């Protein structure tokens, strides 16, 4: 067979898509044709590269609407637009995506529930509209021994309210809570033994009362210890060891 007759089959040969007799013809030709062997090697490179191809999948259709809604809102109210390089934006964008997905958690994103969901931060703002349910538990948060000396003069409680979605809303009320160290932030965890579920992250200022709203998945009801840790932005691959506050669900 001539090269011109083999070439149209070479790609299919590389992909293993020829009939056995066609493949045998290609092999016979390759055995005696350096030029076609070179061509084969080039095609094999492409075939090999295809192994790195991502799985053919479309993101959920609602994602696009969420992104455009977010852009629309921030374009209307530019003051809410974050500095792209700041920690604030990292937390905010993370918060946004999780917040917007809440409605789909059970159907589409079960694993998202294992991650933190929402962190809303206010300073002295009363969230009356979010208090339609009385708390089922109020947890006193106290400084842990190693941090107590440096964190005098504040108190904290966490109020837990079940939500119709099955999630639990956690409202943190913290008074005179120390500002985190530079490039750090606080994270709330639900802990059971060695296992933890992050409920989200927040920052603080040292004066006045802050209220933080977070949501955790239903599984968190089996986790009876609450920890607030300080996380460094460059080291968020591991739970922070600096525990600021701790509480036990009664």
């Amino acid at each position, binding site marked *: 067979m001539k090269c011109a007759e083999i070439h149209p089959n070479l790609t299919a040969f590389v992909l293993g*898509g020829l009939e056995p007799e066609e493949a045998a013809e290609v092999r016979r030709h390759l055995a005696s044709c350096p030029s076609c062997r070179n061509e084969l090697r080039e095609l094999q490179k492409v075939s090999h590269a295809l192994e790195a191809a991502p799985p053919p999948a479309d993101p959920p259709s609602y994602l696009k609407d969420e992104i455009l809604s977010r852009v629309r809102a921030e374009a209307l109210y530019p003051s809410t637009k974050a500095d792209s390089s700041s920690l604030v934006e990292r937390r905010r964008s993370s918060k946004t995506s999780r917040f917007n997905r809440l409605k789909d958690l059970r159907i589409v994103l079960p694993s998202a529930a294992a991650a933190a969901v929402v962190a809303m931060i206010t300073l002295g703002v009363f969230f009356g509209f979010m208090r339609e349910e009385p708390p089922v538990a109020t947890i006193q948060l106290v400084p842990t021994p190693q941090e107590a000396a440096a964190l005098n003069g504040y108190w904290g409680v966490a109020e837990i309210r079940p939500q119709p979605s099955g999630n639990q809303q956690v409202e943190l009320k913290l008074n005179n809570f120390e500002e985190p160290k530079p490039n750090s932030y606080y994270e709330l965890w639900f802990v059971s033994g060695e296992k933890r579920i992050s409920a989200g992250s927040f920052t603080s200022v040292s004066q006045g009362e802050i209220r933080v709203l977070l949501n955790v998945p239903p599984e968190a009801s089996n986790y009876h210890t609450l920890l607030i840790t300080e996380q460094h932005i460059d080291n968020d691959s591991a739970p922070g060891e600096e525990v600021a506050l701790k509480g036990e669900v009664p």
Partner: protein
Amino acid sequence: MMPQRADELSDEQLMSRLGGPEVEAALSKLYDRYSRTVYGVGLKILGDRSLSEELVQDVFLKVWRSSSTFNPSRASFSTWLYMVTRSVAIDLYRKRAHRVHQIPDGETHVLTTRDPSEGPQEVVDESWLSWRVSRALEVLDVPHKEVIHLAYFEGLSQREISERTGVPLGTVKSRTASAFKSLRGELAVGDTLQEAIR
């Protein structure tokens, strides 16, 4: 003069419109062109559907927020977007490392399949090839994309593709060869770009 439609504009032209009144149309078009690649690469390196969705959201919000930092004379939009995706993916990978913990009765919460010995840098470094291959596949037209999908991802022979699609066998073979030629060209361009961003 009639204004150009978003789908007639290059990626770089769309980027220049993200700061103006046509932001939504421009971002929407960029999303249509690249969200599959961002999502697919996310699935590949993060191994987690919800994190990949978060990756898509964070990346496109960052594209909008950081559009003024994009300089088309330094890199194509695709290369720039890859770098944004890579950066966000590293952040998410690190988050996952401490947020995905074993949860009782919750196999649905533990979706990671990656080898835990691989660090984020090593994992994310694989993503450049995934990105290039994904982009090379995305720019194929539908008939060529179809034969590659059926041949490579579904493992059909050329004859089976012909029977499945009703396209003559000779056409299937020529489309497969043509698709490979196009992929080869796109990946060669990618190699050049890879050098450019190092």
